[in-house]
C-alpha cells in the first residue's frame, strides 16, 4: 500500500515536472541564464522605427547604426556589458577565470544551448567566430578591438564547453572586449568562409532560415524599403525568475521611416511603441502631449555621441577630384583647422540645434563620459580675432571685398556634406556656414542621402568636408580605438593609412596601444588624457556639440529602463513586455 502511494507520489512529481518544463519549454540540461527583471506576460508585437535601412545583416562586416541595432537582437556575446550598471555580466559564458598575469582568460560556456535553428552551440562556434573576426581579409570593424600590441588574441578550445583566450599582452578591462562580439554559427558560415565569400553572405536578401544566431530574436521577414520583422527565438538562453523563457515579446518590427520627423509623427500617433533618439525640439513638442497620448518621455542626460566637422585628409583621393586635392593643402594645415574651430559658436549651436539639451564639446570625449573626460582641456570661446591671426600666420589674406584667399590668390570655399535625414547635422552645417562668413570663407551645405554620404566618406573619399556624428558603444577608451588608431577602419579623416602620416598620429597610435596594454586604471587615464590633449591641439576632427539622450516609450511597456549606452531603449529587448491591465485602463 505504502509502496503504491510512494509510486503515485513519484509519478505525480514526474508528471508535474514534465508539465512544468513543457509549459516553460525548458528541456533539462540547458544552462539558462536567469533574468531578475519584473515578470511579464508573453506575447505582444513591438513596433519600432529606424531612420535608415540596415546595410547588411552580417555582424562581421556591419558598420552602421541600423544594422547594429537589429543585429544586437539576433546575436549574443560571451560576456556582456549590462547597460544599466555599466558592469560586465555573464552571457554565453557562464563564468570566467583570469590568470594571475592577466594574460589568460578561461571561459566556461553554458551547456545545452541551441542556435535559433535548433543546432547545438559549443566551443567550436566560439573558436570559429574569433577566427573570422581576426581574419584581416574580411576587414571586420571588431578586428581592431581584438588586436593587442599588433597581435591578435588567440582563442583555443580546451573542452567541449571551455575556451581559453590568450592575450598577446596585458589588456585593460579585457572582459569588456567580448561585449557585442556576436558568436556565429559555424555550421552555417564555415563553408562561405572557406570559399572566401563570408563578407557577402547574410546580405539583406538572405532567407530567414539562413540567418541563425543566439540572440533573443530571429529574422522573420524583410521588405525592402519598408520594414524588417524579427520573431521570438524559441531556443533563447535566458529565462525569468519563474522559469518562463524569454523574450516575452513574440515579434519586433522595425519600420524604415527615413527621418526623425516621420518617426515622431508615427510615435505621437501611436503607430510605434518606442522612440530611440528624439531631438530636443521634438521632445519639447511631445512633452505637452505625453499625458494625453499614453506615452512617457525620458531625458537621460549627456550622451557619448559627438558631432564633428570632418575635413578630408585622405592620402588616396580619386584622380578626377582635383579640387579636393588642392583644398587639402588648406585642410592639412593645423592653423587652418584651429582658425575654423575658433570661429565656431558652439554655445549657439547647442542652444539652437539642441535647445540647450546638450553640451558644447572640444574633444570626442563628451561630458557624458564622466570617467574618462580630461577636465583640463581648454574650452576656448568663439574669437574671430584669434581665428584671423591663425589664418594670417598660415599665409591666407583677404581681398578688398572681404573674401579669404590663399597664398596663390584662390578664394577659400568648400562644401560640407550632411545626411539629409539628420535635421540637426544639416542645421549645424548651416550654422557653420554663417559662423565662417565673417572670415570670408564661403561654404556650400550639401545634404545627401545617408548611404550616398557614407559611400563618399568611407569608399570613394570624394568630398571636401562633412558634418558627422559618432559615439555610443562603451565609455571605455578601447571602444574608440577604431577611430583613433591610424590603421583603424573608422579613422575617418585618413582612411586606409598603412602607417601614421603625421607625427601626432604616430603619438596617438603609441598612446592608444599603451593604454590598451596597461592594467593600472590611473595610468590609463593619464594616457587617454594625453590623447585628448593631442586631439585638441591638432584637431583631426573639429568637435561641435553632444546631445542629451532623449527617448520615449508607451507607458504600458514593462521593464523599460533606457540607458545612456547603445542601444538606449532596446538593450533589454528580451525583457520588454506589454502590461495588459494598463492597456485596458488606457482605452
Amino acid at each position, binding site marked *: 500500500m505504502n509502496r503504491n502511494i510512494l509510486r503515485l507520489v513519484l509519478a505525480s512529481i514526474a508528471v508535474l515536472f514534465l508539465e512544468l518544463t513543457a509549459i516553460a519549454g525548458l528541456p533539462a540540461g540547458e544552462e539558462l541564464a536567469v533574468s531578475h527583471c519584473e515578470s511579464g506576460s508573453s506575447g505582444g508585437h513591438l513596433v519600432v522605427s529606424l531612420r535608415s535601412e540596415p546595410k547588411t545583416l552580417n555582424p562581421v562586416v556591419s558598420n552602421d547604426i541600423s544594422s547594429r541595432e537589429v543585429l544586437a537582437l539576433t546575436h549574443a556575446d560571451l560576456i556582456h556589458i549590462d547597460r544599466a550598471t555599466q558592469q560586465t555580466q555573464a552571457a554565453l559564458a557562464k563564468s570566467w577565470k583570469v590568470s594571475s598575469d592577466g594574460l589568460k582568460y578561461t571561459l566556461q560556456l553554458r551547456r545545452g544551448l541551441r542556435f535559433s535553428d535548433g543546432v547545438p552551440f559549443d566551443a567550436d562556434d566560439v573558436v570559429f567566430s574569433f577566427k573570422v573576426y581576426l581574419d584581416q581579409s574580411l576587414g571586420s570593424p571588431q578586428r581592431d578591438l581584438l588586436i593587442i600590441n599588433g597581435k591578435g588574441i588567440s582563442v583555443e578550445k580546451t573542452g567541449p564547453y571551455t575556451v581559453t583566450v590568450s592575450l598577446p599582452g596585458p589588456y585593460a578591462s579585457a572582459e569588456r572586449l567580448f561585449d557585442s562580439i556576436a558568436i556565429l554559427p559555424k555550421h552555417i558560415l564555415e563553408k562561405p568562409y572557406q570559399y572566401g565569400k563570408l563578407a557577402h553572405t547574410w546580405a539583406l536578401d538572405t532567407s530567414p532560415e539562413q540567418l541563425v544566431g543566439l540572440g533573443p530574436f530571429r529574422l522573420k521577414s524583410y521588405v525592402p524599403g519598408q520594414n524588417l520583422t524579427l520573431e521570438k527565438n524559441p531556443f533563447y538562453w535566458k529565462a525569468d525568475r519563474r522559469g518562463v523563457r524569454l523574450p516575452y515579446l513574440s515579434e519586433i518590427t522595425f519600420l524604415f521611416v527615413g*527621418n526623425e*520627423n516621420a518617426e*515622431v*509623427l508615427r510615435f*505621437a500617433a501611436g503607430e510605434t511603441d518606442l522612440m530611440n533618439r528624439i531631438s*530636443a*525640439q*521634438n521632445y*519639447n*513638442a*511631445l512633452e505637452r502631449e505625453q499625458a494625453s497620448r499614453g506615452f512617457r518621455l525620458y531625458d537621460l542626460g549627456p550622451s557619448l555621441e559627438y558631432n564633428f566637422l570632418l575635413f578630408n585628409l585622405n592620402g588616396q583621393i580619386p584622380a578626377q577630384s582635383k579640387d579636393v586635392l588642392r583644398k587639402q593643402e588648406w585642410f592639412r594645415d593645423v592653423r587652418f583647422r584651429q582658425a575654423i574651430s575658433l570661429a565656431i*559658436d558652439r554655445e*549657439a549651436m547647442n*542652444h*539652437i540645434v539642441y*535647445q*540647450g539639451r546638450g553640451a558644447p564639446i572640444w574633444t570626442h570625449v563628451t561630458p557624458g563620459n564622466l570617467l574618462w573626460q580630461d577636465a583640463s582641456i581648454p574650452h576656448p570661446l568663439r574669437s574671430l580675432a584669434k581665428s584671423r591671426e591663425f589664418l594670417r600666420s598660415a599665409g591666407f589674406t583677404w581681398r578688398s571685398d572681404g573674401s579669404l584667399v590663399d597664398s596663390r590668390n584662390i578664394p577659400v*570655399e*568648400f*562644401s560640407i*556634406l550632411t545626411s*539629409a535625414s539628420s*535635421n540637426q547635422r*544639416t*542645421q549645424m552645417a*548651416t*550654422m557653420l*556656414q*554663417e559662423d565662417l*562668413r565673417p572670415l570670408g570663407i564661403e561654404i*556650400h*551645405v*550639401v*545634404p545627401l542621402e545617408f548611404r*550616398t554620404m557614407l559611400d563618399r566618406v568611407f569608399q570613394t573619399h570624394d*568630398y*571636401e568636408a562633412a558634418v558627422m556624428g559618432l559615439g555610443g558603444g562603451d565609455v571605455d577608451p578601447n571602444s574608440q580605438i577604431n577611430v583613433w588608431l591610424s590603421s583603424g577602419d573608422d579613422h575617418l579623416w585618413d582612411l586606409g593609412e598603412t602607417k601614421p602620416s603625421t607625427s601626432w598620429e604616430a603619438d596617438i597610435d603609441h598612446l592608444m596601444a599603451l593604454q590598451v596594454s596597461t592594467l593600472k586604471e590611473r595610468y590609463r587615464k593619464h594616457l587617454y588624457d594625453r590623447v585628448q590633449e593631442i586631439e585638441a591641439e591638432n584637431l583631426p576632427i573639429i568637435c561641435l556639440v553632444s546631445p542629451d539622450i532623449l527617448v520615449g516609450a508607451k507607458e504600458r511597456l514593462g521593464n523599460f529602463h533606457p540607458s545612456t549606452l547603445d542601444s538606449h531603449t532596446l538593450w533589454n529587448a528580451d525583457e520588454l513586455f506589454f502590461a495588459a491591465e494598463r492597456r485596458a485602463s488606457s482605452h
Partner: protein
Amino acid sequence: MNVPRGIRGPLSLLVVVHISALLAGFLAPYNFVDQDRSLSLSPPSKVHLSDSQGKPHWPPFVYRLIERPGHFGEYLEDTSQRYGIGFLVRSSEYRAFGVYSSNIHLFGVSPPARLCLMGTDSYGRDVFSRLLYGGQISLFTGLLAAGLSLFLATMLGTVAGYYGHWIDATIMRIDELFLALPWLYLLLGLRAFLPLRISPGQAFLLLIIVIGIVGWARPGRLIRGIVLSAKERTYVRAARSFGASDSYVIVHHILPQTRSVILTQAALLIPQYMLAEVTLSFLGLGVGEPTASWGSMLAPLQSYHVLASCWWMFFPGLVLITIFLSYGTILRALQQGGFS
C-alpha cells in the same frame, strides 16, 4: 487688350507680388542671410500703438523680445524701452536688380530690437524678408521656365505641324518620349549627377533650364494641332499661291492663331513650374541654403515641433496658395475666351 473685370483683381495681385519680389532689397527690413540666434523661432513682432499704461504713441513701435530663461522658443517683451518704426531707414547694403547699390529700406527699427512681421525661422532669420527674397527664386523660376518651355513648344510644334512628313513624325516621337518621362524622378536623378558644389545662381539657372526643357512636350503637341489646321485654311493657301515664303506664312498667318493656346498654357505652366521649384527646394534639391526659396522655407515644416507650434512658418504656403488661385482664375477666364 481688354481685361475683363473678373480677373483684374488676380492679375493686379500677381503684378504686385512680382514687383515686390523684384524690390525685395528695399521692402525687406533685413538681408535674407542675417541670423539673430537669440531669436530662434520667435513669433511675429507685435506692433504697438500704445504702451502698457495705455498711453498712445506715434509712430507705431515694437518692444525688444527676450527669451524666457530656460524656456526655449518662449519670448517676453522687454517693455522698458520702446523702439519706434522708422520709414526709409538706412541699414544693411543690398543691390537692386543686381546693379544699383543702396542701404535704404522702406521701414525698420533700430537694433537691438527687431521688427519681424512674420516671425523668425530656427536661425532667427526674418521670415518676411526671406519671403520677399524667396519670391525672386520661386516666382521667376516659374515665369522663366514657362517662357523657355513655350518657346521650345512653339518652335518645334510649328515646324512639326507645318512641314509634316518625317519631320513631324520625328518631333512627335521625341515629344512622346518627353511626355512619358516621370519628371520629378528625372530631376532627382539629375541632381545626383551634378557636382556637389554649385552656386545659388547656377542652381537657379539649372532649375529653369531643366524644368523648361522637360515641359515643352504637351504645349508643343497642342500648337502642332493648331498649326496643322491653320495651314489648310483658304487664306493660307491663297498666300502660298501668291508666292509667300514659308517664314512669311508662319509669322503672319499661323503663329497669330496659336496665341490663345500659348496664353492658356502659360497660365497653366507658370504655377505648375513654381510648384516644381518649390517641391525640389522643399526636398533640399533646389537652390541651397542660405538662399531663400519658398520651398526651402517650407522645409522646416517637415519637423514635427515646427508643424505643431510655429504657425508663422506657414506664410510661404499661404502666399503660394493665393498665387495659384490667381493663376487658376486667370486660366478659367482664358479658357472661356475672356481676353479679346
